[in-house]
Every structure is written in C-alpha cells, then in structure tokens.
C-alpha cells in the first residue's frame, strides 16, 4: 500500500480554505487575521524547510549527521522548555539538556535495536521522527515537573524548612516536592494511555495509516511509542529534578530565589 499523494492542485484547494476563515474572522471582528496570515506563512516556510532537509538527511543517512540533528533537536527543546517554565535560563540549560539527551538517546537506540530491530540502528527515517515524538512529550512533562517543583517548594517553603530542621538533608527535604512534581508531570501521559483509541485516533497511528500502513502495524507502533514516551519522560523527569535539587539551592540548602525571579 502507498500513501495517497496530494497533487499541487490539491494543495491549492487546501490553502483556499484560509479565504473563508479570513472572511469569518473579519465578519465577527475577531481581530486575528494578521496573526492568522503570519502563522500560515511561518508554517509554510518552516515545514518546507523541514521537507527539504529531511529528504536529504534521509537520503544521506549518515550516523554523524543523524546524531547531530538529534543533538540540535534536544538543544532547542531544552532551550524552549526552560524559557516557557519562566525559570532562569543560564543556570538550568546544561542540566536540562543532559536530562533530555541521555534518556532520549538511550530509549531511542533501544527502540531501534530491540523493538523495531533495525539492522542499522541509526537509520535516519526511524531515528529522527521517533526522537521528535519523544522530545515533544518529554519537553512538555519536564516543563510541568520543573514548574511544579519550584512553585510548590516556594509556596511551601515552610514545610521544606520544617523537614530540614528535623534532620532532613536537602534531598530528603525536597523529596515530597519531587514526588508531587513527577506525579503532576506524568499524569497526562497516564491519562493518554488510558483513553487512547476511545476519543480520537492517536497521531502516530493516524500518520501511519495515512501513509499506507496496515492498521495492525500502525497499532503496534502506537503502543510501542506510548510505552517509550512514558519511560523516557519519567527518566528525564527524575534526572531533571535531580539536577534541579543540586542547582536550585545554595550551600546552606536555602532555595535560590534568583532562579525563579526572572521570566
């Protein structure tokens, strides 16, 4: 089976749908037409680039190029993750980068080697899309974990101090907050797993079916992807918080508020 292609004329018809959208927005004075146009243009440019370079990366399929690409993805993920968690970038960038890179690489290679059982485990057209999937999810859950951790420990600093004052080390006193952060961060993953297929068809599966795969194979991929995403996010959360506990406090175990102040 092959994917049904979209001819140029089809693309044009598709983009034509933007015209009635503009009309509706204008009619209801929603005032978001400018944003809509900017967004559409950005999408067109960005995705065209992705199509171009992915085509060449897949053709080239060189281990170093593939790894470099993944490094870049992780770097962007770490950067935007810290930024949107409104924590200070500088101090947490490297740990976040490591907390995302190490689990992702390990899980990725395991996926290619043991699950899909590829001959060439750095094969670009599996490695890169799966890395993208994992990083997207890991990014979201790491942001939640970091935010929850620092917000709750700031809000309940008295509890943190109460534990320190009764024998806890920094790690021990931070543990209740770490637990809460991981639970919060992993909750969406759990919910998704529990409801998958009931409400909507998940992305990986849909993509594969549209791409011409057998639904059974598509489901197998979907299940495997959910499992590795869960594992990867959890591992990454733990590492991330481990680093946060190391770096988020001063030598006397006081919460380093400078980390939180700046947006």
């Amino acid at each position, binding site marked *: 089976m092959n994917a049904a292609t979209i001819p140029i004329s089809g693309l044009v018809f598709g983009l034509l749908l933007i015209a009635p959208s503009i009309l509706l927005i204008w009619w209801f004075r929603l005032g978001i037409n400018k944003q809509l146009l900017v967004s559409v243009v950005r999408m067109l440019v960005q995705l065209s680039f992705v199509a171009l370079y992915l085509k060449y990366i897949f053709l080239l399929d060189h281990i170093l190029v593939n790894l470099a690409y993944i490094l870049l993805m992780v770097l962007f993920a770490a950067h935007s993750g810290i930024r949107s968690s409104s924590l200070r970038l500088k101090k947490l960038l490297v740990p976040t980068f490591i907390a995302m890179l190490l689990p992702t690489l390990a899980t990725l290679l395991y996926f290619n080697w043991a699950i899909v059982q590829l001959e060439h485990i750095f094969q670009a057209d599996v490695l890169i899309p799966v890395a993208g999937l994992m990083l997207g999810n890991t990014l979201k859950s790491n942001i939640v974990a970091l935010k929850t951790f620092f917000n709750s420990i700031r809000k*309940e600093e*008295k*509890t943190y*101090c*109460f*534990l*320190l*004052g*009764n*024998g*806890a*080390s920094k790690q*021990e006193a931070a*543990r*209740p907050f770490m637990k*809460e952060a991981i639970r919060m961060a992993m909750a969406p993953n759990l919910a998704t797993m529990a409801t998958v297929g009931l409400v909507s068809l998940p992305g990986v599966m849909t993509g594969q079916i549209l791409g011409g795969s057998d639904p059974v194979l598509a489901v197998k991929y979907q299940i495997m992807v959910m499992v590795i995403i869960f594992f990867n996010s959890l591992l990454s959360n733990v590492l991330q918080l481990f680093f946060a506990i190391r770096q988020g406090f*001063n*030598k*006397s*175990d*006081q919460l380093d508020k400078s980390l939180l102040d700046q947006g």
Partner: protein
Amino acid sequence: MVMCLCLFQDIAGHVPAFFVLLFPYSFLMIRFKDVSLRLGNKQLLKNFNLRIAKGDKVLLAAQSGSGKTSLLRLILGFIDSDSGQLFYKKKAISPESIQKIRSQMAYLSQDVDFPNGKVRDVFQEIFQFDSNKHVAYSEEKLLEKLRAFDLPEALLTKNTSIISGGERQRLGWALIQLLDRPVLLLDEPTSAMDEKQKQRFIDYVAQTRKTVICVSHDPAWQIPEMKVITNLIT
C-alpha cells in the same frame, strides 16, 4: 545596648555548678555575636549578642514582628545574617557545618508544617532520614505518644493537611520527643492548645535537660525556669 546573657544556673544536676563557674564557656551551646539582620526594610537585629548555655531555657517574648522567628531561622541556617556570626558549641554556623548542627536540633515551626500525607507515612519518612536513622522509632512508640497527648489513634491514617491546629501542635510535640535532640527550637508551640495541654508541655520544658529556645507571647510560658527576652533590637 548590647545584650549578653550567660545562663548557667540551670544545668545543675547535669554538671556541678562550680565546674560551670570555672569554665563557663565550655558549656556554651549557642552564641550570637554582633549579629545584624534586615528583612525587607525592617532592621530586626542590630549587633545582637546572646549566649545560651547547655540546658538553658530561653523564652523570646518580644512583640510580634520583632524577629523572634528569624532568630530561630538564623540558628537553623534558613536565612543568613547581614553581619556578625553565630556559633554552635563554639563552632561558627556556616554552610559547611550547618547540616551537622541541624542534626542536633528539633524544630517546631509556627504552623508545624508537616508535609502532605498520612500521619503514619509522614512520620515513617521523617525517621528514615539519614540523620534520624539511629533513633529507634516504631509506630508503637508514636501510638504511645498519641495516647499520652489525648490524640485519637485514628489520627495515624488521617492526612496531615486536614487535622486541626491543636492536633498538629501535639503531633509536633510527639515528633520532637521521639527525635530526642539536645536542642529544641519552638515557635509558638502551644498557641492552639487548651490550658491543660499547654501546661503539660510547659512542664515538660521546665524539667528537661535539653537546651530550649521558645518563641511565645503567652504569659503562661514565663515560668522561673525560662530566661525571658523581651527586647531584641536595642
């Protein structure tokens, strides 16, 4: 005015009094030396001096907002002074020494800020901390304390976030008695208790050999055993 209290008479029964008089500084537990502290735009302490000897009971009864709680937080290293130095057993309280010093203390914060969780699990976790592992703790011992403090056994399975202020305070007392540390730092530890309960803990402090620093407005705490400090900034 510089405040300087050398309080040794209370350790009678612990060490012979003449010994203390000969070597007063050997039994020094906590010392504030020229400590200044500003929080926000309020000068809480200015060149504050205080010596607390082993076994002393100090009551901080200055008016509210005067930095009593900060005094406890300084000792525990939760905040740093702007100038001056604190000592614990003649060793400077510093980032290097603070963990060891904290392990000598038990601390009741004003709201007894137990972490969220079932009382049973929270206690279990606290006694699993590395510096508490040597304490022989069992749930049976906690139950004994609950009974002694008129707390229902059912409290064990209740969440710390839903128990009343008075119950929390008594649970706090249970914790510090089970921890059995040489130094007790207490911040308004009986504010939510009735007279009978309160008296029980005041009596406990009066007879203990531990070094106690207590913050309280309550005149009931102003017993002969306590050295009362009513003025922090001078």
